[in-house]
């Protein structure tokens, strides 16, 4: 292996060691444990091929790749199921794979009521701990679009959980800055 490829490999190993645990956690929250390693490997294979384009803050970018990997897996899973069982095409809203098991029933039901994009927006903030700007990178949209999506998702989630729009119970939510940029 030459000097350049050796350096490239070392750079990749550093990227992998630094972020694979976060990507694995992202996958564990969304797919059965037996699929986690595949998602991580697929995500980092894309990163290996695009190593020269890795941004200075790689984690949201990696989340974005992992998100697309999961979407591909869900689509191929649905195609297989459709072929096998000749089921009618399911809407994305009904796809169960995006919601982790182990949640309380009311929260899981509320999450299922969100659209895929809304759900991903709130989960990126709540579970991955991203700021809205970072969430926008992971979601593959502009920061402004992500903030609007997040605002709608929170209102929707609050309504599903039994509170008025934007709140659960008595607390009032700041629609744009509630998740903070810290």
């Amino acid at each position, binding site marked *: 292996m030459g000097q350049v490829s050796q350096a*490239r*490999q070392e750079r*990749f*190993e550093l990227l*992998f*060691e630094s972020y*694979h*645990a*976060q990507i*694995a*956690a992202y996958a*564990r*929250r969304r797919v059965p*444990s*037996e699929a986690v*390693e*595949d998602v*991580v*490997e697929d995500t*980092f*294979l894309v990163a*290996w*091929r695009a*190593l020269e384009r890795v941004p200075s803050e790689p984690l949201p970018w990696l989340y974005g790749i992992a998100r697309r990997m999961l979407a591909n897996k869900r689509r191929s899973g649905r195609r297989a199921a459709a072929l096998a069982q000749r089921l009618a095409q399911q809407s994305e809203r009904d796809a169960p794979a995006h919601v*982790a*098991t*182990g*949640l*309380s029933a009311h*929260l899981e039901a*509320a*999450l299922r009521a969100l659209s895929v994009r809304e759900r991903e927006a*709130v*989960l990126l*903030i*709540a*579970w991955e701990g991203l700021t809205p700007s970072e969430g926008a990178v992971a979601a593959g949209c502009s920061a402004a679009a992500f903030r609007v999506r997040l605002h709608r998702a*929170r209102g929707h*989630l*609050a309504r599903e*959980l039994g*509170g008025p729009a934007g*709140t*659960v*119970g*008595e*607390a009032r*939510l700041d629609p744009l800055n*509630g*998740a903070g940029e810290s």
Partner: protein
Amino acid sequence: MSDPLDLLRAENPVPAPRAFASTTRRLMIASIVTHDPASTGRVAGLWRRLSRRRLYLIAVAAVLAAGCAAGAAALLHAERSGPLSGALPGPPGGKYSFSVIPSLGAGTVGWCIGEETQMPSPPLRELARKLSSDLKQALVRYDAELRHGRLSAARRRQFRRYVDTAIPDALRSLTPAHYRSSPLLREFARAYPAGEGSGVCGEAATRGRPIVAVMAAGGSGRRVGLYLTGPDVAAVRISSTATVLTRADSQLPDGYRFAVVIEPRGSPGPVAGSGPWPVTALDRSGGVIPSRFVLPSEGETAVPWQRQRGRSAVGPRASSTVPAPAACEIDPRGLTSAKLYYGSVVVHVHGSPRLEGEPYLSCAYMQFYYRGYTVQAAVLLDARHPGRLPAPLPDSLAVGSRPETVNEPQHSGQQPITGRRIGDAWLVVESTGRRGFSPLAERLGVLEKLTACVRVHGTLCP
């Protein structure tokens, strides 16, 4: 009430990122960097999907090319391992299940394997007839010989053995439905408790000890064996013609693998009380991994204490009635009605970096009675580097709304474990009562009120 995002945060199913074991990481990186960065074609995609299996294929190809026929044969004839839970060989209806949990005894580093076997149940009427006729015959003969004064001591022992084994053997075939349907069977079950599961504790993997623990489940002629191995064991050879590949599972500790082996035809039987068959550990190229007797030196010396002298029959004998000042301590004072039995503590923690995988060291252990349950509590550290964050409990799930608390669900005959992160350690509890394992809420209640002190660098807990 709160922000809906706070509700989501509180129920984060994976509250902390968890690194893969070092072997998994190495394999994954090796698998990725072999790809041409410029290649994105369909063929490359198909090749990549072989991912981890491909490494085995490469190993086999390399071995063949080198002319090492013996090593290649080992992998070429390898069979897939059975799962941790599955059907027993033989007539349908039999099931087995293995589980692995950390060893909790203070000073120990290792894993405990539990097994549970369920044999197919014959119709109750047939079973009852067999039970009664066997017993009647034994008792009549016993009685007759006794009346004629011909009952030698050896004969007496023989009958005693017969009665003691015949009944539990029969009871082992019963299901809960049988017990519910017959008061007589319930009486028998009380008099002759026939265990349907058992457990054995082993060490952690290290150089020279690739196979960590072995366990057999099932009955004569229809047994399966579990081999718990370290991360470098790719297969176990059980005979000159049979080799079984190891596999990973989320139930296992990080870095560990297992092989479940169906009893070979004409097997000579177990070589040890709880073990299946002698095997050889093989690496990814089919080479033999040397196995030798390794003293379990990776544990630490523990100092026992014993609160109630009356419990000496079940606990270790100890001169002290309170824990000595030590690196770790469990404080049960929050559990006002707890009745302490005994425990042990590790005074100084050193760590064993040569261990493989990510095992725990138990540095404090305590057993006590609380609200109808016998509770075992332990503080678990990273055995290789105490003071570092230990690995997550295998197969555990976050308990909703309780950050840092996880529950490892019950697997086969072993108790479910619930743990709370305290600094760079796990405080874990398991508890059992007359009616079986305690509910999760009970264990959470205990965890909430227990406190623990962990000081691995010099100073001791008060």
